[in-house]
């Protein structure tokens, strides 16, 4: 019974939405990239970069929003690197992506040591504070969860809207979707495949970095090693779970975050009966089950992971 009461507790839903926020950013980023036909396994490293750059900018005296922009730019830079290697050069997207993750993560840790040589415990910053939207935040249960969060969470939800609208309602979005289906169609209509794919990967990577920055600027308020902790990989699965559609991917992110928030609380309820590692596993097991149930029939972008060489015979 206690296990069920958790669901009626506002603090559970607040936590779920907070946990979902970085996933939403990064999932949207991966989704844009994959929609254009480029798998970006650099996501884990790019999130690490974003987390560090955003946090350090503020720590060094920059404004919060300036930190978000800096994180986005750093992410876009790694995106351009991934794009350059996989699009014009046509290298394996798997191998390049993993390379980007290793490079970005190591560079971040290296920079951290270099910039903060004497620090033993990571310093905290004055992070984004929750901002309660008047009236709406007074709605029971939903109010605190959706309308009393930090501005970055609101931005995450707005991003989903912008991505959906951009993909389905603008010429550039159409070009992105077609380039992931059949790049030859894009070229035959006089648009550069390289331009569209590079732009999509860079934009997507910027969003991933903002997702990382959320952790340091809106959740933990400081940077420490291993803090991304597989969130990037989860986002790869969430894109598949969402069948490459922004709305469904958002739903997946919230669902996963809810599982995560739930298991933390369940640990307390269940006490010593079950080892806590079992609860830690729970969201991942559930997401694998969800993938099996949902994603088997998904229509993936046909040209995903296939490099396009102009004029190839």
């Amino acid at each position, binding site marked *: 019974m206690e296990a069920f009461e958790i669901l009626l507790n506002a603090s559970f839903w607040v936590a779920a939405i907070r946990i979902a926020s970085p996933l939403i950013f990064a999932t949207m980023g991966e989704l844009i990239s994959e929609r254009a036909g480029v798998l970006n396994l650099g996501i884990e490293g790019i999130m690490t970069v974003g987390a560090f750059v955003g946090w350090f900018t503020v720590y060094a005296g920059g404004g919060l929003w300036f930190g978000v922009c800096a994180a986005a730019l750093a992410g876009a830079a790694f995106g351009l690197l991934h794009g350059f290697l996989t699009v014009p050069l046509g290298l394996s997207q798997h191998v390049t992506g993993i390379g980007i993750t290793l490079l970005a993560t190591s560079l971040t840790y290296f920079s951290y040591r270099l910039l903060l040589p004497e620090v033993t415990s990571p310093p905290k910053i004055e992070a984004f504070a929750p901002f309660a939207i008047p009236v709406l935040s007074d709605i029971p249960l939903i109010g605190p969860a959706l309308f009393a969060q930090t501005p970055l969470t609101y931005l995450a939800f707005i991003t989903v809207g912008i991505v959906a609208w951009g993909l389905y309602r603008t010429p550039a979005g159409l070009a992105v979707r077609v380039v992931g289906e059949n790049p030859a169609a894009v070229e*035959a*209509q*006089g648009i550069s495949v390289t331009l569209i794919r590079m732009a999509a990967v860079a934009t997507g990577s910027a969003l991933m970095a903002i997702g990382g920055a959320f952790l340091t600027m809106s959740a933990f308020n400081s940077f420490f090693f291993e803090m991304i902790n597989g969130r990037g990989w989860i986002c790869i699965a969430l894109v598949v779970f969402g069948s490459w559609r922004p709305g469904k991917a958002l739903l997946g992110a919230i669902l996963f975050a809810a599982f995560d928030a739930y298991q933390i609380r369940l640990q307390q309820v269940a006490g010593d009966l079950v080892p806590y590692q079992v609860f830690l596993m729970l969201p991942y097991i559930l997401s694998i089950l969800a993938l099996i149930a949902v994603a088997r029939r998904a229509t993936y972008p046909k040209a995903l992971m296939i490099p396009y060489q102009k004029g190839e015979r």
Partner: protein
Amino acid sequence: MAIMKKDEAEPVLRLDGISIRFGDVVANDNISFELKEGEIVALLGENGAGKTSLMNILFGHYVADSGTVQAFGNSLPPGDPAAALTAGIGMVHQHFTLADQMSVLENIILGTEPLFSLRQNRAAARKRIKSLSTDFGLQVDPDSAITDLSVGERQRVEILKALYRDVRILILDEPTAVLTPGETEALFATLHKLVANGLSIIFISHKLHEVLAVSDRVIVLRGGKLVKTVPTGTATRSQLAGLMMGAELEETEFPGGEPRSVMLELSSITTQRSPGRPALDGIELRLSAGEITGVAGVSGNGQATLAAIIEGGQRPDKGTILINGEPQEGWSARRALACNIGRIPEDRHAIGMIGEMTVTENVISERYGSDRFSRYGILDQRACEEFAEAIIRDYDVKCPSPDIRVRLLSGGNMQKLILARAFDGNPEIILANQPTRGLDIGAVNYVHRKLIEARDKGAAILLISEDLDEIRALSDRIVVMSKGRLSPPSARGELSIAELGERMAGRGDVWEDQKSGGGKYAA
């Protein structure tokens, strides 16, 4: 008078000294020609003559090594499809450049609006597509997804894509390769309407009768060179064939076969629909020794599944496969090989041969486990190589050594290896799926002779082909495949091309009879 007028017209397009090489192959060698307003020029040549390369240069997919393209008096920058489109040149590619999951409308408006504008005017686009459709007889629903369209409809979308951009010059690369005879007629009618509206058209083909039927002028390419330009009015079939091949066309008339006992029988074979493949619906088929059965039909009507079932790559959901009258249990590719079924797969690059492996490795790939080629699980290199050398000699394969990678061979030589592998051990049943696709006429004749030879030795052959002329020339009996169903067989010469075309389109008496009769072919 009309002809006079065309002669006076200014050229809308001028190609001057175009050359391009791919490695050692000269695809285009100093080609120059002009296109006049309101003219349909046919570009005729065998596979590999350089037609598609030339058009890809014109449209900016390839950059020529030398030469210039001028449209309406202005030079086109090389390698820029956007510039070609802006200059009013549209191209309908042989392999459609459509995004399957998107709608017709989305495919058409792609690239026609500024990339970074924040909105799309879909209502206006839809209206314009509808009016173009009615004007030029290109009926298609703007809101259906490409994947739901037939091949003929997809081609209409490709043409609409060009018309939507107000092109003045339209290039069609082998547009009839995928069409039924009826759809081809409709396409020709559309082309005449376009020309009447002042467009100029380049029509690429290797089919003589189509070229003669639709064009004003024929430009013949051979081996990358422009051989001759002939006004269609004075051209004859044999003259064009001669120019195209550099020799007179031998139109061989193959004698019929003498059917004997039934070797393979498919009985009420049914499968589920899968992506890109229609469901098979109660397939009945009997292959007799000493007979070629031709399966006519437009690709994508279930031929791939039918072939997969005979090869053992797929099991039917319902129905029985009988070999020599014995029902087969646990049907698989291994069983099919054991039943002595020789296979010529549809796509020699993807399935037939492994390009990165050597000739030897490829020719033993179906039998490496047999005593001939291995002992105690170790390959007998000498036996393998001797086998490969024998094939190279007997089949006259042009390749320097059995150790070179198959990727380096021409299509015709690759196909010879596949034939040799399939015919090794005198198969009783042969599945020849598109055996001559993409080959030049010399190689086509070779394959045809070999198939007839195998038939006369007593093999039961199933010939699946999109090329109706090939089906009619080789088959003793013809069945037509349409929408996953197979028509009852007709004897050689029993049906005209038009009647076969009706069946290919899923129309005609036979399908109606089946529906009303509720017999074994019924839906």
